[in-house]
């Protein structure tokens, strides 16, 4: 479904959609005890570190409020800021391209690489290029793309998929990574140990030659300053600097929401992002450049791919504030147990559950808004204050509306809700229904919980248990034990 007629990210390209329903994919992940150990270890480590890094900043909430407000300003006047960015980048010798969707972006990038005559490119970790399936499109055009971020390299060599925004190989432990390197890296030392330092050194040696000889690099961008045309890439390993600096041609693919209005705005985001993502005071390396610098050719590809559809929903558009820090993944009780692959999209976890269905339209990711307990931890840590729980509830209603629009006759949920409304609108009907609920006690006799509801209600219990109804309803208990006293005490009856 499109929202208000806006085109969403197209099917058949990129990686934004569920392949299996979330409950099925999650159940598969939960069966993998190694995966759960890897994730539990990693997320608990980063959670503690982030909390310490944030606690050190006395004005964190003020920075957070400013971050949200700056992003809202960008979204409200996105047309103006994009045009300003285009003007600045062009004035400084860069070339700006506009890509309505993944296919167009892939075509543009492929064409730019072909024009250089190169068959090999190096890549900086970039969510946007993962989202549009750029590597696959390049492979189809006979161009080999090498991922240079360590985790992305592990994923690429393992013929695997990323499972975390910041640490895409978080689902792998050191043993598994050593095995992948020994199998896929021809120049890996035969007696390679599983020490992270040894594995890192092997990756350095493997990539060094490619860095020093690459003629074309592809990157994403963390920020683009409309006022000055300055682009910023935030990283740790130096692979970003290698790609951004050494090759003669640089192609940056950037979602249109990555803009900041003014140079000054970086003073907010360069505090919010490092502490929220890697839990550091500052990440090791940040590169900034405006247009074509130091003799390079520079191309900037501005990507929509469902972002304008997201922007069109007043209650969903704040998802575009996201700066991809991944703090919400690390605190999410669902993500911690299922990992990223269960979400299907390159954007997993809480932010993925609100972003992916908006980019694709809710019909293509109908389970994701339900893949949450609405506990609110994601909202608390979000550096740009995206109210993810409220947005999830809103998107659940969009999923239901979408099903109604495409379903002949009422869905079981709709029928149940209508019956509930009829029952609750009359106090006698409601009292009767509550007492009738008593019958449910028959179901939970053995375990004290109801594991399987009969008939069409079975869907509810397919992924959760239901508590056995109590002996007495609250209303009956109140009438019996407190009702009289409460009436006698009038309005002063609260002694709790």
């Amino acid at each position, binding site marked *: 479904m499109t929202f208000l007629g806006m085109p969403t990210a197209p099917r058949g390209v990129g990686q934004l959609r569920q392949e299996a329903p979330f409950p099925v994919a999650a159940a598969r992940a939960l069966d993998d005890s190694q995966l759960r150990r890897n994730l539990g270890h990693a997320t608990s480590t980063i959670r503690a570190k982030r909390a310490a890094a944030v606690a050190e900043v006395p004005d964190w909430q003020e920075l957070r409020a400013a971050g949200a407000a700056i992003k809202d300003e960008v979204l409200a006047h996105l047309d103006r800021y994009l045009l300003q960015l285009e003007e600045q980048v062009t004035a400084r010798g860069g070339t700006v391209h506009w890509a309505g969707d993944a296919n167009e972006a892939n075509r543009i990038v492929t064409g730019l690489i072909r024009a250089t005559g190169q068959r090999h490119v190096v890549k900086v970790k970039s969510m946007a290029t993962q989202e549009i399936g750029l590597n696959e499109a390049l492979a189809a055009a006979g161009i080999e793309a090498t991922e240079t971020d360590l985790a992305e390299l592990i994923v690429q060599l393992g013929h695997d998929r990323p499972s975390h925004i910041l640490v895409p190989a978080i689902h792998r432990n050191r043993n598994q990574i050593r095995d992948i390197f020994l199998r896929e890296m021809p120049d890996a030392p035969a007696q390679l140990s599983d020490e992270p330092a040894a594995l890192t050194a092997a990756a350095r040696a493997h990539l060094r030659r490619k860095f020093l000889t690459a003629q074309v690099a592809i990157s994403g961008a963390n920020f683009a300053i409309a006022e000055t045309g300055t682009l910023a890439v935030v990283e740790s390993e130096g692979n970003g600097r290698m790609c951004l600096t050494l090759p003669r041609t640089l192609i940056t693919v950037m979602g249109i929401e990555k803009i900041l209005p003014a140079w000054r705005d970086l003073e907010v985001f360069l505090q919010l992002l490092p502490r929220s993502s890697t839990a550091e005071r500052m990440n090791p390396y940040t590169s900034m450049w405006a247009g074509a610098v*130091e003799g390079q050719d520079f191309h900037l590809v501005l990507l929509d791919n469902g972002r304008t559809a997201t922007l069109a929903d007043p209650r969903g558009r704040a998802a575009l504030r996201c700066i991809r820090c991944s703090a919400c993944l690390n605190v999410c009780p669902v993500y911690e147990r299922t990992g990223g692959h269960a979400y299907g999209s390159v954007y997993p976890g809480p932010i993925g559950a609100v972003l992916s269905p908006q980019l694709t339209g809710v019909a293509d990711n109908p389970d994701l808004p339900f893949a949450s307990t609405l506990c609110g931890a994601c909202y608390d840590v979000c550096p740009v204050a995206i109210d993810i729980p409220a947005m999830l509830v809103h998107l659940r209603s969009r999923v239901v509306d979408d099903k109604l629009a495409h379903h002949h006759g009422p869905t079981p949920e709709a029928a149940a809700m209508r019956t509930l409304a009829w029952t609750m609108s009359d106090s006698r009907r409601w009292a009767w229904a509550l007492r009738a609920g008593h019958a449910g006690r028959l179901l939970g006799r053995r375990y004290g919980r109801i594991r399987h509801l009969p008939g069409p209600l079975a869907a509810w219990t397919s992924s959760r248990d239901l508590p056995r109804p109590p002996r007495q309803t609250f209303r009956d208990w109140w009438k019996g034990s407190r009702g009289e006293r409460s009436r006698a005490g009038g309005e002063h009856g609260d002694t709790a």
Partner: protein
Amino acid sequence: MSSREEMLARIRAATADLNGQPEVARRYRPAARGPGTADEALVGLFEERASDYRATVRRSTAGEVARVIADAVAARGAGRIGVPGGFPAEWSALLTDAVLDDPPLDVAALDGLDGVVTTCAVAIAETGTIVLDTGPGQGSRAFTLVPDYHLAVVRTGQIVAAVPDAVAALDPARPLTWISGPSATSDIELSRVEGVHGPRTLDIVIVTD
């Protein structure tokens, strides 16, 4: 209609309900202590925070810089050291195998160096960061990237308090590299490994102005 026009039209339609966006409230700590204001406490904070990243930090008076640099380079066992154009000659005077990067060396030549010495544009105390803007004494971006060892000289007058002070002091039109410690990764089980693709060793020399 071109993709450009189409995207702009979609954005305008999508945001038609929004008008009169409130002014951004900046209630966070503003830029307050720019270049030239650092006292001993701020210099000490920079020293501590840069050391937290396992950069090795040394202090020097103006007259001893050449000696401190030569000792630091020797302690790393580095021989061939690249010296960029505009780097004060008196600071590199005691380097025994200095290679002048003027005109700029190509990547293969940079790969043959053991390390480089540079100045910087600004340094941030709170985050232990140095920022290079390819100005005099700093070399190109590749110059401080390809060799495995980087020694940066920071004058106390270049140390600012926090990120907003640095943003205010920098020129957004120049290529900028913000450096906080040596390259690092936490990609394997989130355990931090220092030294990946950029220089694996970072030394900082703070010179009292």
